[in-house]
């Protein structure tokens, strides 16, 4: 039973303390799933791609996924379903309750000086937090390491002689160009990246 309660509470916390939705939630989600060993960094990155290629909000998708995987480990098929239910309910509930509370007074709420101040702080911190998530995701994708790995073992210089590194770097650079300057949608980016990966794989490059 503890597993389900922890799933509910952790995702409730994520739902209650992330503002703006979407990628703004990644830093908090990353910290939580790594702490409980629900997902590895690589599984999280893979799941971001799955979430971009399927309908719906990222937070709902990842809570359903983590809940079903974790629940299934604890209680088989029904455990998986219940785990998904607990995690998803947890992530949805704070927004639902808060909107019910403020729906009637939202004019005042929005113009409140304290609310504006809090938003100022939150919009700023989220830039730094996602920036930090970028570092850990870049280390995973390009160097297959983590920050603590670098602190203990030094920088993995050997990576520079692998073709996977150069392949990933080129795909990253091209995709970044396409998103920033050609405004290509995320799902197309994932499609092109997947095709490049498959092509390079069968060509024996990676």
């Amino acid at each position, binding site marked *: 039973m503890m597993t389900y309660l922890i799933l509910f509470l952790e995702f409730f916390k994520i739902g209650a303390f992330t503002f703006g*939705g*979407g*990628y*703004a939630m*990644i830093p908090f989600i990353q910290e939580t799933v790594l702490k409980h060993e629900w997902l590895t960094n*690589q599984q999280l990155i893979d799941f*971001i791609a*799955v*979430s*971009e290629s*399927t*309908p*719906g*909000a*990222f*937070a709902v*998708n990842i809570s359903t996924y983590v809940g*079903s995987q974790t629940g*299934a480990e604890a209680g088989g098929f029904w455990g*998986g379903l219940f785990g*998904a239910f607990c995690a998803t309910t947890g992530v*949805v509930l704070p*927004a639902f309750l*808060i*909107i019910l509370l403020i*729906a009637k007074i939202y004019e005042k*709420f929005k113009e409140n*000086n304290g609310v*504006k*101040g*809090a938003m*100022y702080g939150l*919009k*700023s*911190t*989220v*830039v*730094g*937090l*996602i*920036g*930090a998530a*970028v*570092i850990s*995701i870049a280390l995973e*994708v390009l160097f297959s390491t983590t920050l603590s790995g670098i602190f203990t073992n030094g920088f993995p210089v050997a990576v520079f002689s692998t073709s996977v590194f150069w392949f*990933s*770097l080129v795909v*990253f650079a091209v*995709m970044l160009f*396409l*998103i920033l300057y050609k405004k290509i949608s995320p799902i197309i980016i*994932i499609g*092109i*990246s*997947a095709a*490049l*990966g498959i092509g390079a*794989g*069968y060509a024996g490059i990676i």
Partner: protein
Amino acid sequence: MKKKLRLCLQLLLSFMKIGVVTFGGGYAMIPIIENETSKKRKWINGDDLLEVVAISESTPGPIAICAASFIGFKTAGVLGAFFATLGVVLPSFVIIYIISLLLSNFAQLDVVKYAFTGIRAGVLALIVKAVVSMFKKAPQDTLAYVIMALSFALVVLFSTNVLIIVISSAVVGIIASYIAKKRGKTL
């Protein structure tokens, strides 16, 4: 009562449709929510919808959930909020649940492994893009830059708890806004 139940059913179906057709979530959902709830159903007018977006930004949780709860509540009270939220969540829940049953089997295939090697690099680009757009939407002054830099450094160098950083940043923002107000300025 009968009328209200029918309204709830309409909310459920409309938001299920919104949940099915929007990929990626977040702001991508706004035009589709507008089309479904404002243009087709007249549940909410265009100006109010902009308010919904502003409120979603200043309350926690996914934007789609905030918008569904808000529009559902305005249309048919607490029950309406419940059905709209249920509608927007249900498609994701079902689809991802099915994927979670299949993903581990697929992950062993060579073609999937190759695909994900490419995809991970693409996802890195998507997240870098997210930082760029969040930065553009963030306040642009010295205090904001200090908060950004400190949040970044605390996580990268000291693995500080994200929740503590989020709450501290909100508190700093509130204090700064009151100091600014006392001096007759705004943040």
